[in-house]
């Protein structure tokens, strides 16, 4: 009798912990994991530019995000970041862009985008952003006259 009770309670604990832990693992995994390999994703989201003017680059980024109808939520020159948000239908689209020195001649711009509760990993979307950013840089340069 005693033994059978022990087995049952043991099983109970096992099932309970399995249920609890599996829930934990699934939500915890989301904190660090990206759906694609980190390296591939980084190259899709990044672009190097031949300038070292971080301030000007950040202003071009803000202008581009405004061109793309983003509400600017936050920006920081020290950290080199800009964060914005817009809506597509009822879905919230959040975007952050970081600008940092790549070497003594180049800056690295990295963008990442979230669509609702999904990360955006489609290379075409990021290509569109960088081509918009290039246009914005061109327009800024044109205002020299």
């Amino acid at each position, binding site marked *: 009798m005693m033994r059978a009770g022990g087995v049952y309670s043991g099983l109970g604990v096992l099932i309970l912990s399995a249920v609890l832990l599996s829930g934990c693992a699934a939500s915890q995994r989301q904190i660090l994991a990206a759906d694609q390999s980190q390296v591939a994703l980084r190259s899709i989201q990044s672009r190097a530019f031949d300038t070292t003017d971080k*301030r000007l680059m*950040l*202003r071009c980024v*803000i*202008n581009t995000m*405004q*061109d*793309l*109808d983003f*509400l*600017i*939520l*936050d*920006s*920081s*020159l*020290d950290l080199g970041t800009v964060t914005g948000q*817009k*809506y*597509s239908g*009822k*879905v919230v*689209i959040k975007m952050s862009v970081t600008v940092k020195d790549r070497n003594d001649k180049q800056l690295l711009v990295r963008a990442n*985008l979230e*669509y*609702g509760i*999904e990360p*955006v990993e*489609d290379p*075409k*979307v*990021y290509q*569109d*952003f960088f*081509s*918009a950013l290039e*246009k914005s840089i061109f*327009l*800024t*340069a044109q*205002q*020299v*006259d």
Partner: protein
Amino acid sequence: MTETKAVVRKLLLAATCVFWAGCQVMPKNLLLLPPDYLAAREQQMRKYDTADEKKVLQASAGALQDLGFTIDKSEADLGMIVSSKNRTAVNAGQVTAAITMDLACAMMGCYSNAYGNTDKEQRIEASVLVNSALSKDATLVRVKFQTVIWNAQGKLSRFTTVKDPKIYQEFFDKVSKAIFLEEHKI
């Protein structure tokens, strides 16, 4: 027999439709420049003949406050000001039409919640970016007004960019007055 098959096929089709509707397809053009972005820039940007970026930034903040906005964030190093105001979006005509429709529906014995979809609250966001021109003899100001509207159920109803030229002109007029300089179009 053929009739049952047809019914089964229809049911399958309906089930597939329901499943497809559940899966939200991510649009491909999330970050594609809108075709009218240059016209929008022209409306949102002005140039002032001064190199004093800080003065223009302060004048912009003052203009936003004059227009009833509260400053949410500012980053003077980048020349960025983010501000907003919350206002009602209730439109009497829209509400009356919705209630009439709901009542008519109730009398006919069906359920309708048109009232729930009427506009209730809006947040108007204004983001300002003050840039010195590369030539260093002028300062560029860009302001963008956007509105987010929620319905009576508290759900997001619409997100739009304000296109009325009068609103932009009023902002630039206020900045001009504060710094005693006429603005130029880009």
